[in-house]
C-alpha cells in the first residue's frame, strides 16, 4: 500500500474544498470497500479525507412524509430504523441482505452507493481491466462469466454493480443529494449509476470531488407494499447472482396503480424495469400478466456464455415477488398504512 496523509473533515464544505485542493485525494467512510481495494493495490490514494464523522449521520423526516438519510448513516442503523421498516421494507430488507452484521455496522449510505464492482479481474492488478486501467482491455470478456452482466453490458466491460441497497433505492424513486466544488445538485438514484458503454472507468454520474451528502426517499404511494429478494450461492454473506426490488400499490378494483421493479446482479447498474412497469400499470395483476411483463423486460437480455441462468433466475424472482406482494402473502411485507 502506498503511504498517504489523512484528515478528518469537520463539515461537508470543508471535505469538498480539501478534496479539490489535493490531487490523489479520496473520501473515506466505513472503509469496507476502499481499504480493501487499497490493500489490493486497486486504489492508491495519496490523501484520505475521513467523512464518516461528518454530521450526516441522521435519518430525518421530510415535510412531505419522506425520509432524508445522511450519507454517514450506517447500513445496520438504516435497516433497523422504525420509519424505514414501516414505510420502505424493501430498503430495510435490501440492506439486511448485504454483507454481514459487522460490515453493515461500518458501511455507510454514501459508501454503499459508491462501492466498486466485485469483478475478480478488476480486483487483480496483474491483468487488464478497462475499468481500472482505461484502454487496457477487458479480461472478463473471454474469462469467467458466471457473475457478469446479462443486460446493458458492452464489449468494454461486462461487470455488475454489487450493491443491494442501490437496487431498493432505484425502485423507491429515491434521490441522491450531492455537494461539489460547483455547488449542490440532485440526481435520481435510478440514474446515479451508469451503463459501461465505452467508458467503464466511470461507475456513476458523480463528478470529480463531489460528495454524497444524503439520499432522500419520497413517501410510499398510498397502500404500497414492497419487498426485496436476493438469490445467491449461499444463504447469507454472499453477493447477489440476481435480486429484485418491488414496490406495488393496487387500486380498489385490483388493477395496478403503481409498480416499480428493479433488478440487481444483472447489469452495471441497478436495472429499473420500465418496460415491465408500463405493461403492468393499469392492468389486473394476474400471474400471466406478471410473467408477460417480466418476459418483455428480459427480452433485452444478452447473456454471456455461462450466465444465461441469471435470466431465468431473475424472471422467477420477479414473477414470484410480484404475485406474493399482490396476495399480501407471507413472502410479501406487512400491509402499509394507507
Amino acid at each position, binding site marked *: *500500500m502506498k*503511504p*498517504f*496523509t*489523512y484528515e*478528518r*473533515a469537520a463539515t461537508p464544505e*470543508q471535505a469538498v474544498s*480539501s478534496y479539490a485542493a*489535493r490531487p490523489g485525494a479520496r473520501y*473515506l467512510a466505513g*472503509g*469496507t470497500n476502499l*481499504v*480493501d481495494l*487499497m*490493500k489490493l493495490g486497486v486504489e492508491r490514494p495519496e490523501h*484520505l479525507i475521513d467523512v*464518516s*464523522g461528518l454530521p450526516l*449521520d*441522521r*435519518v*430525518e*423526516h*421530510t*415535510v412531505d412524509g419522506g425520509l432524508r*438519510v445522511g450519507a*454517514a*448513516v*450506517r447500513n*445496520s*442503523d*438504516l*435497516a*433497523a*430504523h*422504525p*420509519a424505514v*421498516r414501516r414505510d420502505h*421494507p424493501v430498503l*430495510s*430488507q435490501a440492506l*439486511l*441482505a448485504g*454483507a*454481514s*452484521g*459487522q*460490515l453493515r*455496522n*461500518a458501511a455507510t449510505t454514501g459508501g454503499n452507493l459508491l462501492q466498486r464492482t466485485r469483478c475478480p479481474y478488476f480486483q487483480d492488478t496483474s491483468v487488464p481491466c478497462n475499468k481500472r486501467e482505461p484502454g487496457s482491455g477487458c479480461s472478463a470478456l473471454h474469462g469467467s462469466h458466471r457473475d457478469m452482466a446479462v443486460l446493458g453490458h458492452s464489449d468494454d466491460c461486462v461487470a455488475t454493480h454489487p450493491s443491494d441497497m442501490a437496487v431498493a433505492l432505484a425502485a423507491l424513486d429515491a434521490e441522491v443529494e450531492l455537494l461539489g466544488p460547483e455547488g449542490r445538485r440532485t440526481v435520481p438514484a435510478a440514474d446515479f449509476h451508469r451503463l459501461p458503454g465505452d467508458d467503464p472507468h466511470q461507475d456513476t454520474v458523480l463528478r470529480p470531488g463531489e460528495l454524497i451528502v444524503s439520499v432522500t426517499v419520497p413517501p410510499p404511494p398510498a397502500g404500497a407494499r414492497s*419487498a426485496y429478494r436476493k438469490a445467491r450461492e449461499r*444463504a*447469507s*454473506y454472499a453477493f447477489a447472482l440476481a435480486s429484485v426490488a418491488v414496490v406495488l400499490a393496487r387500486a380498489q378494483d385490483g388493477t395496478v396503480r403503481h409498480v416499480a421493479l428493479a433488478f440487481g446482479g444483472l447489469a452495471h447498474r441497478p436495472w429499473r424495469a420500465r418496460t415491465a412497469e408500463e405493461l403492468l400499470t393499469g392492468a389486473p395483476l394476474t400471474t400471466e400478466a406478471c410473467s408477460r411483463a417480466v418476459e418483455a423486460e428480459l427480452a433485452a437480455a444478452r447473456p454471456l456464455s455461462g450466465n444465461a441462468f441469471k435470466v431465468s433466475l431473475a424472471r422467477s424472482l420477479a414473477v414470484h415477488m410480484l404475485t406474493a406482494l399482490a396476495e399480501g402473502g407471507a413472502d*410479501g*411485507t*406487512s*400491509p402499509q398504512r394507507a
Partner: protein
Amino acid sequence: MENASSARPNPADPPGATAAPAAGRPTSQAPTNSATSLESPLTLLVNGTAHTVTADHRASLLDVLRERLGLTGTKKGCDHGQCGACTVLVEGRRLNSCLLLAVTQDGARITTVEGLAGQDGLAGQDGARASHPLQEAFRNRDAFQCGYCTPGQLCSAVGMLAEAEAGFPSYVTPPGAEPTGPAGLSRAEIRERMSGNLCRCGAYVHIVEAVEDVAGAVGADGTGTSTGTSTDAGRPADAGEVAR
C-alpha cells in the same frame, strides 16, 4: 423537516431514540488535519487500558492490536472482511478490525477477546476472573475445534446479542414483525446474524447452540445485561455512556 430522529439504534437506546455520534466513532474525536504527515499519534482504550502509539496511516486496527499492543487474541484470517476472525467491539459495536484503519479509531473504546472476561485484566490471568458467559457456553458446548475463529465468534456474538437487545432486525426477521430481544432469537436468526464469522472446522452447529444458551439466559434474567457481565464489551449501558 420535522421530527428528526436518530439514524442509529444504539444498543443502549430504543430504536428511533435521539442523538448519537456516528457509530464506532468516539465522541472525543476532533477534526484533524495531518495533511503532511504519513503517520499520526493515536490513543486506543483497549479493554480498559489507554495505549498511545504513533501509527503509520496504512496500519489496520487489527495490526496495531496484534503487533504494537501484543494483543494476539484477535486473529487475522483473510484480511479482507470476508471471514470475521478479526472481529472486535468498538464502542460496543462489532466491526472487522482488518478493514478499519487504526488512525480512524483515535480515542475509541475497544474490547478484544482478551477483555471479554474481566474489565481490567486478561481472561484467566489471575485465575480468579470469571469467564464471559459466552466463553463458558463455548466450552460447555464444545463450540470449536482448532479455535482460530473463536475470538472473532465470541466478540461477534457479544455484539450480535446487543444488537438484538436494541431491536435490530435481520434478513430472516419477518418484515412486519416486532424485532425480538435475544431470548426470542430462533436458530435461523442466530445463523443469519452470525453469518459474518466463518469456521473452517465447521463447528457451526455447536456455535449456534452456545449462542442460543446465552441468548436464552439473557431473556431469562429479565435484565438483558448478562451478556456484558463485568466487561465493557457490548453491554448496552456501555454504548449509552458514549452516546450521551
